[in-house]
């Protein structure tokens, strides 16, 4: 007499396999298993043996039935009794996978994914066939069957199988570690291979999948699977996923062109737990290091991928990780500059552009206060050489300054002037001293001209925009003026002259613009800045008609008792005959667009750009970002003290942030970004309150003390050097002519530009 359980098992098989599982008898078997769970092991073993026998006799119909029965028992029975039964189940799955028949392989993966992956076990067994499953499923992912439908079917089964193993093991700490390289090195390339074998390689645009399409196409399913995998990765696992990704892209030449690489990394960035996204950027950066000997084309492509994903990381990056990333990029840039003279320098240049682009992308997505930090950090990296440096140094300086501007360009234009701290300008101006002996003689070298053409309008736009802000103080306006004057001295040349003139006109437009809420005093300041710049400009680029015209306008203002439209800038003006509010400034006292164009034409220059009215629209309303503006100014002054080292030429400033320790990194990573954000919000609130509580003049005092002084010393130094190179005779400064009774004027130092451009104030 056969044991009861064997009879029950035998009864579920019909005489003819086409008839399928005998339902009633299956119910009996299930009931028996539930009531006598101790028999489950034997039932499993017996089912397994039957299936093996049927397999070897090629009676696949019966194999199918055995499998279905096992699936049902697996689902019906309770966790604690499953242990050995699961072993039998997995053994038969393995048997099926060893078969050469596609149908049986697919059957096996279905069981794994649909049943096994979803059951919870109390006692997971350590020694399972995961190694075999991963190996076999990965192999199936590469199936090369002659018949396309079969090939797709097997590949899909392989991907599903991997998905099942991932789900099963990731959730379970006790079982084999799926994140081990031995598994990841199979799983990841298998998924990528299926993804790449799709439209991305055929140059088609990616499109979002139709519902249901995912099930039918290996690329879609592979993509889903990799998202799932990456999404489950903890910090320690990120590297073990990324390593095979990078290797795969290397070996399959998927960097250049890089659509697929970008696609893949986007997927990774969007599925990874956001606090780890920085690790992805870091890995890619590391890969760039490892590829330092690769062709520039490859490196450029990698850097390009970096620039495409870096923004996603920026939002999550905090503290040292930010500077770490910037630092890596700058290091790459430095290395590349050193290589530029080698053959293929042009391609090397493309690489540098890609790096700078990545830098810009990254900075663009950081909060403003960090942008400032980054600009200062870049500044600190610029080599400082008193004598004319080597070719490399000049190039490097050039590149770094370009980076600086790229970051600057991304900077919220509205808060530009208030957040442009003296301590930042200082090294920037230090740079201008050493830049090039040529530059000191106010000649513009060719690369700088190109550079200026490219960035000056952008920069002007930001600065001028800043001038229109209603909360500007005299100091703000002065700072912008100083900056603009500097830019003029540094970069003005025939090519960019129209930009300069447009900028001056824009400032004037701002002063006249009735729609802004500027006070009369603020408007006057703008007029003064505009005319001062116009007077300065012909000294830099010798164009006598322009100089004559400028003097004419100045004279007009003096004659018509409009001296408040001339320097110096005051908080309030005591105008002898206050013009009725809103009364227009007489036309003759204004800078006229057409007149400027004529000056250019007289000098034989292109006047086209100037005649076309070029009013740049406001990009942001200042109201929206008033908080940012306030935050910026204080942040800069409190966070970025100008230490004595940095004002001593020759000593590189060392930023505390530059010291990146592993511990610090860990701390930052451990710190939840939510907490961070809350802290940030709180800080901002306090700042706002501080601003509300303090009086205007107090604020001014706070904002204009020590830093300004050292800045001024530097400026004096710089400009006296420059002055010796100027051909224009300079009259001594009538500094004593200040007769301001304003509190502010007493505490603030003498406006910098008066000392520097005495001739401007001789009127």
């Amino acid at each position: 007499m056969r044991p009861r359980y064997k009879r029950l098992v035998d009864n579920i098989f019909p005489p003819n396999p086409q008839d399928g599982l005998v339902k009633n008898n299956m119910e009996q078997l299930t009931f028996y298993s539930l009531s006598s769970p101790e028999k489950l092991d034997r039932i499993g073993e017996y089912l397994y043996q039957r299936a093996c026998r049927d397999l070897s006799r090629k009676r696949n119909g019966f194999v199918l039935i055995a499998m279905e029965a096992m699936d049902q028992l697996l689902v019906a029975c309770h966790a604690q009794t499953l242990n050995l039964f699961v072993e039998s189940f997995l053994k038969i799955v393995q048997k099926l996978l060893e078969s050469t028949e596609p149908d049986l392989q697919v059957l096996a993966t279905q069981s794994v994914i649909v049943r096994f992956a979803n059951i919870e076990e109390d006692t997971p067994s350590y020694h399972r066939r995961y190694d075999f499953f991963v190996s076999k499923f990965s192999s199936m992912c590469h199936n090369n069957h002659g018949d396309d439908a079969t090939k797709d079917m097997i590949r899909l089964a392989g991907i599903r199988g991997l998905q099942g193993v991932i789900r099963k093991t990731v959730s379970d700490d006790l079982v084999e570690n799926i994140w081990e390289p031995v598994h990841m090195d199979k799983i990841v390339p298998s998924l990528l291979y299926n993804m790449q074998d799709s439209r991305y390689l055929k140059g088609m645009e990616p499109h979002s999948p139709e519902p249901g399409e995912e099930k039918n196409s290996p690329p879609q399913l592979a993509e889903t699977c990799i998202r799932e995998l990456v999404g489950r990765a903890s910090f320690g696992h990120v590297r073990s996923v990324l390593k095979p990704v990078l290797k795969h892209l290397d070996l399959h030449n998927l960097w250049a062109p890089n659509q697929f690489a970008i696609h893949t990394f986007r997927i990774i960035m969007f599925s990874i737990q956001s606090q780890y996204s920085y690790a992805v950027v870091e890995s890619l950066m590391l890969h760039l290091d490892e590829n330092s000997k690769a062709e520039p084309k490859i490196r450029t492509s990698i850097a390009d991928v970096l620039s495409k994903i870096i923004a996603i990381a920026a939002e999550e990056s905090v503290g040292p990780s930010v500077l770490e990333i910037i630092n890596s990029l700058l290091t790459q840039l430095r290395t590349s500059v050193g290589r530029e003279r080698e053959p293929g320098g042009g391609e090397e240049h493309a690489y540098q552009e890609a790096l700078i682009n990545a830098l810009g992308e990254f900075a663009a997505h950081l909060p403003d206060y960090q942008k400032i930090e980054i600009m200062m950090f870049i500044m600190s990296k610029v080599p400082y050489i008193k004598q004319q440096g080597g070719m490399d140094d000049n190039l490097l300086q050039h590149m770094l300054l370009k980076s600086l501007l790229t970051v600057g360009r991304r900077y919220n234009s509205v808060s530009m002037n208030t957040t442009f701290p003296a301590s930042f300008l200082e090294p920037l101006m230090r740079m201008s001293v050493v830049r090039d002996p040529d530059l000191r003689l106010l000649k513009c070298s060719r690369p700088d001209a190109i550079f200026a053409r490219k960035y000056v309008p952008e920069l002007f736009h930001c600065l001028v925009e800043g001038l229109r802000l209603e909360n500007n103080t005299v100091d703000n306006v002065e700072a912008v003026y100083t900056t603009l004057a500097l830019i003029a001295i540094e970069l003005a040349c025939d090519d960019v002259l129209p930009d300069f003139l447009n900028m001056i006109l824009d400032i004037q437009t701002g002063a006249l613009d009735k729609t802004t809420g500027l006070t009369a005093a603020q408007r006057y300041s703008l007029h003064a800045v505009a005319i001062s710049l116009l007077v300065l400009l012909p000294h830099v680029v010798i164009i006598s008609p322009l100089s004559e015209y400028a003097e004419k306008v100045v004279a007009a203002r003096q004659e018509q008792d409009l001296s408040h439209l001339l320097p110096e800038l005051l908080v309030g003006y005591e105008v002898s005959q206050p013009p009725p509010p809103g009364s227009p400034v007489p036309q003759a006292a204004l800078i006229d667009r057409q007149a400027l164009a004529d000056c250019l034409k007289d000098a034989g220059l292109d006047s086209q750009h100037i005649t076309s009215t070029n009013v740049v629209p406001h990009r942001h309303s200042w109201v929206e970002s008033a908080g940012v503006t306030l935050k910026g100014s204080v942040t800069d002054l409190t966070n970025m003290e100008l230490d004595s080292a940095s004002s001593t030429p020759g000593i590189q400033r060392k930023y505390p942030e530059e010291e990146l320790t592993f511990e610090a990194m860990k701390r930052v990573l451990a710190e939840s970004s939510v907490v961070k954000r809350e802290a940030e919000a709180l800080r901002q609130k306090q700042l706002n309150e501080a601003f509300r509580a303090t009086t205007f003049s107090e604020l001014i005092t706070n904002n204009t003390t020590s830093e300004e002084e050292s800045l001024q010393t530097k400026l004096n130094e710089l400009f006296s050097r420059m002055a010796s190179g100027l051909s224009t005779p300079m009259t001594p400064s009538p500094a004593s002519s200040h007769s301001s009774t304003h509190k502010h004027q007493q505490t603030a130092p003498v406006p910098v530009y008066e000392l520097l451009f005495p001739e401007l104030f001789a009127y």
Partner: protein
Amino acid sequence: MEDYKFLFKVVLVGNAGVGKTCLVRRFTQGIFPPGQGATIGVDFMIKTVEIDNEKIKLQIWDTAGQERFRSITQSYYRSAHALILVYDISCQPTFDCLPDWLREIEEYASQNVLRILVGNKVDREDREIPAQVGEDFAQRHSMYYLETSAKEAHNVENLFLQIAAELMEQMRFKELPRYEQEQAHSINGRTTAIGDSCCSRLS
């Protein structure tokens, strides 16, 4: 109850086109496949053989020779008990690449993996590498050496049976107390040791 006593993993490597897939098909299915595409990634086959009345299951992983699949193929070396390195005796470049393959194996396979050098396609008239040259190379690098023809079923069965026998021998040897743990690779001495981790014994 499993239907075998030992399970061994065998991995085939070597340049594309030397006949790895044909060797596996010949052995597992007894056929010489006509015009099949090049292997992509890794292929899998299974065959159970009998040695001294013991059933031995061979898991055979047939890898793609192309460079671009190296990332996936290398990951299969690690758990291999035996590695068959194949070249084509009528194609000098496939022989010249052997040092590269050895470096790969050195880097990714287990230290004491059983390594067999196979010169395939001996049925061809246009031999470029004399048997002696192949054998010398194998000797220098502590490998077994065999010449085969997948096409004419020459030495194919023998190749896999010898591997099975050798690995089984090592398993038996391993059960005895070992004083010398250092792996000693000697072709004649048959003293190849296999690490504990890389063999799985099943009841």
